[in-house]
């Protein structure tokens, strides 16, 4: 479902590769956790996967569509929740959802059903006619999630999706992520909360210095080290991390 082949990216006026020869394949039905220290290349990788940045080398394919040659088709396969949600805070929640539904060309019955379902699920109905700037951080995050999933895409790419959500909303979103994967779709999400990745993900990728240091199930990552937690593995794999986010 998600395929990155030897992807490399260097920012202009920098001689350091933000992402270096990264190859990764995430299949349908997988809930993939993407973890790494600050500055490891997580955000750059996600930006390339969503078509925001163009890789210098390598190819990215989303649900069979190559990002370099079929960008629009590839982007239609994705529901993307970016990190940080200071978006269009002068629109009302409903105007924002209509905007997203128009962009993804969701017809009236489907968008109505989707909006009703998720507003109810996230208890956002009462505020939907207010401007987004009146929302709390968690409410904004809920709105962005509803908007990103409005076209029921096969691939969800979520950059720190649980930040700001209250425990109930976080639980509901995690359940939705699992349900989506159980239907044969893919969820790719980045997080700094290792416990969440440990409990939720079917596979985990650890990135550091722009390269994939390890990928596999938790058991595969442990590779025989019985009892090693994801935190201990993470610290071992990213021993000299700690620079700013690329």
């Amino acid at each position, binding site marked *: 479902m998600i395929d990155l082949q030897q992807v490399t*990216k260097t920012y202009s*006026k920098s001689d350091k590769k933000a992402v270096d020869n990264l190859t990764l394949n995430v299949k349908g039905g997988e809930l993939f956790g993407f973890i790494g220290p600050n500055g490891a290349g997580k955000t750059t990788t996600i*930006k*390339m996967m*969503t*078509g*925001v*940045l*163009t*890789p*210098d080398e390598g190819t990215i394919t989303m649900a069979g569509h190559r990002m370099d040659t079929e*960008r*629009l*088709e*590839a*982007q*239609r396969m*994705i529901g*993307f929740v*970016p990190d*940080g949600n*200071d*978006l*269009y805070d*002068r*629109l*009302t929640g*409903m*105007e924002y959802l*209509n*905007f997203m*539904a*128009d*962009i*993804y*060309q*969701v*017809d*009236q019955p489907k*968008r*109505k059903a989707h*909006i*009703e379902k998720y*507003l109810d699920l996230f208890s956002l*109905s*009462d*505020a*939907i*006619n*207010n*401007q987004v*700037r*009146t929302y709390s951080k968690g409410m904004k995050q809920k709105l962005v999630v509803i908007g990103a999933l409005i076209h029921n895409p096969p691939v969800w790419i979520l950059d720190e999706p649980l930040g700001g959500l209250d425990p109930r909303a976080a639980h509901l979103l995690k359940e939705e992520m699992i349900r989506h994967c159980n239907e044969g779709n893919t969820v790719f999400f980045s997080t700094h909360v290792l416990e969440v990745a440990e409990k939720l993900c079917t596979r985990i990728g650890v990135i550091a210095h722009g390269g994939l240091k390890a990928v596999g199930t938790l058991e595969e990552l442990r590779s025989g080290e019985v009892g090693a937690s994801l935190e201990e593995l993470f610290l071992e794999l990213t021993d000299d991390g700690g620079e700013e986010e690329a």
Partner: protein
Amino acid sequence: MSTFFALLRLQLLTRYADLKPKNLKAALRDKRGRTVGMLIAILFLVVYLGVILYILETKALDILTPSPGAPNAVDLRNLVVILAVVLATGGTLVMAFFFIMSALYLGRDATFLAALPIKTRTLLSAKLAQVWLSETLIDAVILLPACVLYGARVGAEPLFYVRMVIVWLLIAILPICIAAVLSAFLIRLSALWKHRELIMTVGGIALFLVYMFVMMNVGSVTGDSAESGAIIQKFFTDNASRISGMTQFFPPAKWAAEGLLEGDWGKLALFAAVSAAAAAVLILVLGIFYRKLSLLQSEAPQASGKKGIQKGSIRVGSAFMANVKREVLTILRVPAYAVNILPITFMPLVMIIMMGMMFNKSAGENGAQSLTQMMGNLNPALIMCIMALAVAYMAGMNPALSTAVTREGKGHDFIKSLPVSAKTLIHAKLAVGCGLETFGVIAAMIAVAVMIPGFTLETVLALILCLLFCFGTACLALSRDVKKPRLDWVTEQEAVKQNFGVLISMLVSWGILAALAGLAFVMIHFLNWGLIPVFAVLAAILAAAAIGAYKLLMKNVKKYYFAG
């Protein structure tokens, strides 16, 4: 360093960071072309304004100097200085209002600063000092050249220049105090209503229009039409009482003008004392409320009261229309955008109406020819060119397209992640920006047709030229913003006001107009061409330029908009 100076330094560094020698040096090293271009553009604008002021003021002084052979002639040269005092006072009032709204109330640092252990009055003083510094720099352009030219002409004593410096340093204080009170009132009022941004937008636009009306009331001559010495002479002699009257209307301006011109130190001291007292009272009184007022804007406005999905609120549309709607709503709902874009959209209309009214009023009072009669004596091609030039000159100042990509700010990456072609996104921006300009231009031309009846063909052809010009310059402005958007802004005011692209686009559009005006002059004056041939040539050039500009835009979109 005291808290006051630390705060002032912080704000000045934030606002003028690009002009710090160290940063300029780094910019010249890393972005040589862009930095040199910026400096040339600033220099050009300063020279442009300087030359216009110099010509106008020198000519005015020439005309107003009493002839040696006319012993009873009245010396009106001091009107130049009085007018400069009036313009500096009025201009500061309007500009300071927008600056104060942005710096004191709409900055995103309000909550951050409120959490720091700073006395409210210290914070308010530092912010007002920043406004005073900036406005005093602008007043230097308005006041000092007029005073220096006047002083040189009348052979003023050295103390005149000392008084000039005192007036210059003090002249911004009272308008700033008035603007601060007005803005505090508007902010408090807007917080009472859930559509607070609408109140601020309407209030800002209303103040802008009042200022325009007052300034137009001083006289009906603009820099562009002031070529004739006779017009300037008529302007000053006809408006002598009005210009003096305006200082009567605002006594501190009268004290400043009289103190400066007559060497009346008592009046100058009175002016200084009133200015200082006003600043002190403002800081003392507004200091009580400022903290609360500054935080009002960061508070969540009242909820709409409508809960759940409203009937008809879920509507299907195309991706193009979705983006058009988003752009329009953003412009209408962000006060900084609305205040900077909407008045300029309708400025051609307002200016045409005001100029027409002033001219006809003046003609009625003096028994001179009406505008229609005067136009009837001119070559129809010239009439068309004057109409097109006047409207296009003002339309070229619209920042709607020169900031269209910049306004995306932090949302730029999110927009790029959506499955919408760059062409669709850019066409939506173009539709909104050109739509606004077209609306303003058509409204202005309808006003022209109503005020100067009998020139329908000339008006229609001028409208076509204007629309072609607007489309071409819109493509160029957007093309530049696609190539070099400024996405790291903190406040919306920075995005739309402190944007180098706006200045560049304005200068480019004026440059194109100047070239076309030169060509039209040759065709009409030297070749004696009539209306249709002149229109055909200008329309063909503008159409070709518009196609070229559109192609350049699309090329830049392809090259830069989605470039990693």
